[in-house]
Every structure is written in structure tokens, then in C-alpha cells.
């Protein structure tokens, strides 16, 4: 079943045509990555899917329902961390639970159990301004995870992380997905990451962005550190580099 | 301007500047001065008079501070000022109206005909400690219970507005609010103070000056009063035309009211006095004692020093 179906989206800002006829499909339980030049319109596309921006043309359907201009249907991790400066990290991360109606104490407790996994233990009571860039990003990712919707839009979630932390998070994400039944749209600039995680990769062109190519990633799951050295992996990487 | 210290030998064609500070809004009490200004009486004396409308609460402290040569005040205020903890060196030099035309007014339906009827009523005043003493004295004299009178401050509201709501009676000048009531055909009871107790027939308003000015520059004071008296004389004889002079300077006032008030005051400015402005020591004495008896004064009051007739023009 199609979780998300984006059909013929066009979006202009003033005279600037950002997206031109972009169509993307996300099936249930799929992991789909989007690669594309900086400024091509990837974040704009996510904003449209999340219902925050209205496209000039085209439709977005989630489970068959038109969701243009409708919010609340997907978990969305923005490119900017967008942590609330007036709340501690723990309170920031508890927000989705509180919005879901959990009592405050329980929300904080539940969110708190994930701090170790995200490498944030000990920073529960820090304000965002007191964290490093990468830590803020991890907090934002944790917040998105707490929202735990079956559809997640992740806009460069591992952008500011070091190789090790990144690798850890990627593995964790894969593991989580196995149990979670989630469908994920993922923006990244890291081709390795895209291949390692995805079932399908869309490559966007320069502005005005169109879908330049779609790759199916036929690497069997579960994947692990060896995946990076497999033949299929390296062939696919070469193909993508050529397209880009 | 502080012309008090200025040389007296100013050449005739160069007018000496003099500032008069009123007690409140310009009104028919002040007409004589506007007449003197308009008809050139001041200029004839070599004076150029500027008339200033002050803040609420009179001119006594401003005159004491040397902010102007002459001011408009009331006998009660002069008495207070001269007996304050730090006495103000001011002196009354002329009574504008010979008898006290003020009194207690109330709408007819309140049925207030004498101080006895004040019982159980609400009085709207302006917050002077003297009011309380006055009402207390009047009511006790007639055997009424003062504690049954409620006093509120009505601040900037006028009589007609305040009696709309909770206030039953208030203290007015007949020459203004009373005339207004006549024009409006507003059914009103009026209890004139001078009818209740001769001690209450005090001078209001009066012209005042700083003692230093009177000592150092008596000539200026004489000139000023000579022209002013002439102005009031004119107003007594030609109320309508005098009213026009006032209106020329203060066009914001209501013409019909000014003329009517002027006609009323024409009889009152001088009344039974030998000349306009003259004051009797007895009245200062009696009212000063009246206030002193009621613990309204902080210090001893010397009536002789509070006023003088010596600068008034001799006929």
C-alpha cells in the first residue's frame, strides 16, 4: 500500500521556480532517501508533504487521502534543530508525548529513557543554548522519534555528527525500523548513508528540481558494517555519483 | 519675569510688564482686569498686563514664589497661607466682590433648605479641610448630626454633573453656577453663606501680592489697582460691554452665560462698599477667628497684616 504519494508537485517562491513536477512514492515500511544539490528544494518538498506549505500544482496523498495544507499526519524532523530555547532538553524532547496527552511526569520519564541511546545522558536539564551543534541535532532527532508516527520525514538528521556517532545512529535507526513498522522519507547529502539505509533513492536535479533518477537498493536486510564493502553497494554508489 | 527689582524710571512709552495669575479658569470674576486691558487703562498707567490661567488650586504659592506680581485668591486661602508652618508672605490688596456670593446649592427635589437638612445627605466638595469645619459648624448650630453627613470629593466635576449621580448638594458661586441654573431653568435651592452666619461673609475672591513687592514697589501696585478699579467700575456700569471684553480674550466661554453673570455681578462687585475693592478689618478678624476656633490654622493669625486697602485708588 502506498503510504505517501506525491504527484506532479510544482512550487515557486516569487519568480523562483523551486520544484517543477516532482513525483515521489513511499510504500509501507519502506525507507526512501532523497539526494540533491543544496538549494534544490528538498526541504521545501518535505514542508509540502508535512502540510506546512501549499504547492502551486500537484497533490500529496497519504494513505490515499489528500493532505495538502493538513498537518499532524507525519513525524517531521526539520533541518534546523528548532528546539524551544525556553525549555530544557528533557522538556523539549517530551513535547510530542505531552501533545499526545501523556501526563507531564510520565512524558518526561519515557523520554528520559532514551537519553543514553542518543548520547545525551547527563544533559537532561541543559538548555539548548548550552549544547553543541551535534547534540542539538540528536535532541531534535530524539524529539521526532518520540512523536513516533508511522510516517517520518527526516531532513539531514545526521548532518552534524561525527563518523562514529553517525554510524551508531544509523545502525540504531535500522534496528528500530525493523521493530517499528515505520515508513521513512530521508534527506541526506551522504551517498553511503543513503545506500546503507534505503530501499529506494530519488536523485533530484538542480533548481528547478525534477526527479533526475530513481534507484532501487537491492541489498538484503539486515544490513551491517559489511554492507559498505559489498559489491552491489559500490556499484550503486558509482552509478549515483555519475548521475550527480 | 521679575519686574519687582526693575528700575522704576522706565520711560513712559515703554510699558512695564506685569503678570497676573488667576485662581482658575478666566471668568466673570476677572472681568475688570480684561476690561482694563481692552480699554487701555493699564497702558495708560504704563503697564502691559499678561493674564495667566494657573493650575488648579490657586495662585498663592506662585505669587509667594515670585512667579507673578499679582494673583487672584480667596480670603480663606490667604488666611491659610499666612498661618502655614512656613508662612507665605502674601497679602490681599483688593476684594473683587464685596460680599460672599457663594453658598450651598441642591436640586429642588432633594429638599435641602437649611443646614439641618444636610443630615443623611452627601456633600460634594473639593477637598479643603475648611469645608468639613464649615459644614460641621453650620449643622451643629442648627442641632443637626454632622456624623450623618457624607463628604466626597468631586474633583474637576461641576455642580450640575455631580448632582446627577450620588451627590446631593455642593458649594457654588452664585455668580456662575447659580446664573447658569437660572438660564437652564434648573430648579435649585440655594443657601447663601452670608445669610447663615455673618462671620461667613468673607471676601472671595481677592487680589493678592507678595509683601516684598508691596514694600519695594508701592507705585506699581497703585498703578495696577487704579487701572483695575477703573475696569471694574466700567463693568459695574456696562455689564454687557464688559462681558464682551472678557469674551474677546476668552472666546471659549459661553456668551449668554457671561452676559447674564455679568449682569448679576454688576450689583455685587462693589455692593455697599464706599469704593470697589475695599476690605474691612472686622471681616478678616472674625473669619480668621472662626477658622482658628475650629483648629484649622497651624499658627496665630494677624488680620491686620493679611490685607491692606492702602493701594486702592482714592476717589
Amino acid at each position: 500500500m502506498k503510504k505517501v504519494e506525491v504527484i506532479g508537485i510544482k512550487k515557486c517562491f516569487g519568480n523562483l521556480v523551486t520544484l517543477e513536477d516532482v513525483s515521489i512514492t513511499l510504500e509501507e515500511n519502506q525507507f526512501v532517501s532523497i539526494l540533491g544539490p543544496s538549494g534544490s528544494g528538498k526541504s521545501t518538498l518535505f514542508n509540502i508533504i508535512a502540510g506546512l506549505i501549499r504547492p502551486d500544482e500537484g497533490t500529496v496523498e497519504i494513505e490515499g487521502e489528500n493532505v495538502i495544507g493538513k498537518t499532524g499526519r507525519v513525524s517531521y524532523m526539520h533541518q534546523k534543530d528548532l528546539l524551544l530555547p525556553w525549555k530544557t532538553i528533557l522538556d523539549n524532547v517530551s513535547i510530542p508525548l505531552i501533545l499526545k496527552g501523556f501526563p507531564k511526569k510520565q512524558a518526561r520519564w519515557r523520554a528520559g529513557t532514551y537519553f543514553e541511546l542518543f548520547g545525551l545522558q547527563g544533559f537532561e536539564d541543559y538548555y539548548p543554548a548550552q549544547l553543541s551543534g551535534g547534540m542539538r541535532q540528536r535532541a531534535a532527532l530524539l524529539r521526532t522519534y518520540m512523536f513516533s508516527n508511522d510516517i517520518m520525514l527526516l531532513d539531514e538528521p545526521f548532518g552534524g555528527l561525527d563518523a562514529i556517532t553517525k554510524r551508531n545512529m544509523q545502525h540504531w535507526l535500522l534496528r528500530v525500523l525493523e521493530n517499528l513498522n515505520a515508513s521513512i522519507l530521508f534527506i541526506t547529502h551522504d551517498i553511503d548513508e543513503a545506500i546503507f539505509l534505503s530501499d529506494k533513492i530519488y536523485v533530484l536535479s538542480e533548481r528547478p528540481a525534477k526527479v533526475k533518477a530513481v534507484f532501487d537498493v537491492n541489498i538484503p536486510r539486515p544490513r551491517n558494517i559489511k554492507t559498505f564493502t559489498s559489491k552491489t553497494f559500490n556499484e550503486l554508489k558509482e552509478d549515483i555519483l555519475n548521475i550527480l | 519675569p521679575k519686574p519687582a527689582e526693575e528700575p522704576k524710571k522706565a520711560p513712559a512709552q515703554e510699558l512695564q510688564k506685569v503678570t497676573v495669575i488667576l485662581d482658575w479658569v478666566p471668568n466673570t470674576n476677572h472681568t475688570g482686569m480684561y476690561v482694563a486691558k481692552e480699554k487701555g487703562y493699564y497702558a495708560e498707567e504704563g503697564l502691559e498686563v499678561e493674564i495667566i490661567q494657573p493650575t488648579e488650586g490657586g495662585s498663592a504659592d506662585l505669587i509667594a514664589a515670585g512667579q507673578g506680581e499679582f494673583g487672584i485668591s480667596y480670603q480663606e486661602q490667604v488666611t491659610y497661607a499666612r498661618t502655614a508652618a512656613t508662612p507665605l508672605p502674601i497679602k490681599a490688596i483688593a476684594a473683587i466682590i464685596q460680599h460672599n456670593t457663594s453658598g450651598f446649592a441642591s436640586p429642588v427635589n432633594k429638599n435641602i433648605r437649611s443646614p439641618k437638612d444636610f443630615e443623611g445627605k452627601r456633600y460634594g466638595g473639593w477637598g479643603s479641610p475648611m469645608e468639613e469645619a464649615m459644614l460641621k459648624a453650620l449643622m451643629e448650630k442648627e442641632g443637626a448630626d454632622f456624623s450623618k453627613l457624607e463628604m466626597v470629593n468631586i474633583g474637576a466635576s461641576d455642580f450640575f454633573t455631580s448632582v446627577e449621580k450620588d451627590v446631593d448638594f455642593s458649594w457654588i458661586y452664585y455668580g456662575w453656577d447659580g446664573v447658569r441654573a437660572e438660564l437652564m431653568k434648573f430648579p435649585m435651592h440655594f443657601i447663601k453663606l452670608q445669610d447663615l452666619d455673618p462671620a461667613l461673609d468673607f471676601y472671595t475672591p481677592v487680589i493678592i501680592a507678595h509683601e516684598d513687592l508691596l514694600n519695594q514697589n508701592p507705585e506699581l501696585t497703585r498703578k495696577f489697582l487704579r487701572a483695575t478699579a477703573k475696569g471694574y467700575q466700567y463693568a459695574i456700569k456696562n455689564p454687557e460691554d464688559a462681558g464682551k471684553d472678557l469674551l474677546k480674550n476668552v472666546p471659549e466661554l459661553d456668551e449668554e452665560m457671561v452676559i447674564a453673570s455679568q449682569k448679576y455681578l454688576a450689583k455685587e462687585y462693589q455692593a455697599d462698599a464706599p469704593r470697589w475693592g475695599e476690605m474691612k478689618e472686622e471681616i478678616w478678624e472674625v473669619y480668621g477667628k472662626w477658622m482658628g476656633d475650629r483648629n484649622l490654622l497651624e499658627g496665630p493669625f494677624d488680620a491686620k497684616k493679611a490685607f491692606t486697602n492702602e493701594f486702592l485708588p482714592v476717589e
Partner: protein
Amino acid sequence: MKKLQSIGNRLLPIGFTSILLAIWEGMARKGFVQPNLLPAPTKIIHTLVTNFSLMGEHILITSFEAVAGFLISIAVAVVVSVLMDMMPMMRKTLYPMMITSQTVPMITLAPLFLIWFGYGYLPKIIIVILVCFFPITISLLEGLASVDQELLNLLRSMGAKKYQIYRLAKFPAAMPGFFSGLKIAGTYSIMGAVIGEWVGGKKGLGLYMIRVRHSFATDKVFAAILVITALSLLLLGIIRWMEIRLVPWKKYMFQQSEEEYDS
């Protein structure tokens, strides 16, 4: 070190004020200023002490009016500014009316107030509200509108309801502005009550001042002014104390906060 410096920081303003007071006292004693215009500070203090029992009731009444008006203003300002923030139509309708209401010099409406609301507490409280309501609302409105649009989008995308968006983002973001509005309003509130009493009534510092002025007791007028100032500063102190409690993140975001909280 920190502590020592903080004491040093306090010394300067106190020293400066003391010098000003000393000059005033000196001028008054030498007779440069007339005591019936501007009494010496020591004289004012002395009068204040000896007259305090007499002033007690007036002080209580004025404080009550000011605080009641202030609290009501806050409530009204919060409701109105949220309504205006949520509904553009509301804003367009109320904003001009609010502004208009502020441009009318209240003293001129005094008689109307008396007639409509009598001589009791009500007209004074209403005047305090009219004085305080506007700065709070304006600052709050500005603060509510100052939230990063993307942050709001994020919350919306997480399915936050309107009231949750206000609680999580808009109110906290508006806090600094809200408190600067409160400070302005708090400063004016006691004065508003005093002016209200001027307009008419039976008790309160405003009336006390009118009465003592009528008997040329300038020292008592100034003693009353001193009380008004002290009450206002007290109210401001409370507002400040609440700000530190309620906006703890401020010091992580902005500069200078540390020093300011010291003072």
C-alpha cells in the same frame, strides 16, 4: 569575588542618589529653595514618620485600587492579546479602538466616570486598568507575534492544538516582552490610582494630597509622593522577582542578563 563586585555595583547608584539628596538638602537648608515649594528631604522624612498613622488608611486604599486594577489589567490584556493574536479580524477591530481609548486624556472624562461608576473604588480601578492595560497588551501582542514561524510550523506538524501552541511556544516567547510591558504598567499603576482619586472620592493618597495641599503643607504632599514612589518600587520589585522565576532561560540566551539580575 563575584559577591564583592556585586556589592561594589550597588554602591554606585546608592552613592549617586545620596549625593543628589545631599545637594537638595543643602540647597533647602541654605534657603535656595523655598520650603513651601520643595521641602528638605529630612523634613519630608520627618513629616512622613510623624504622619504615617494618619496616612495608613489612605495608603491601604490606594494600594488596593492599584493592585486590583493592575491584576485585572493583566487578565484582560492576556485575553485580549491572545484573541487579537489568534484572530486577525479581532486585531483589526480592537487595535484602533484600544489606541483611541488611550489617546483620550482621562481627566477630561472624570465627570463621566463619576456619574457612571460613582464615588467608590470602581472608577479608580477602571482608571488604573485604562492606564495599565495598554502597555501590557501592546508588549504581549508584539511578543506573541515574534515567535519564529518555523517553530510554530513544527509544533503544528506535531498536531499541537492552538492552546498548546500558546502554552509551549507563544507564551514563553512573549515572556520577555510581557514583562517589559508589566514593568511599564506597574510603574504607572499607583499613579493611576492617585489620579483616579483626584477625580473624586472619599479616601486615598490622592485625596490626602489634595487636602494637605489646601493647607499649604507642602511637606505632607511630598511625604505622600514618597509613599507613592515607594509603593511603585515595591510593585516593580515583585514583578522583577517573578520575571527571574518565570523566565529562567533568559540568562542563557541573552547577554547582560546576569548583571541585570544582580541589581
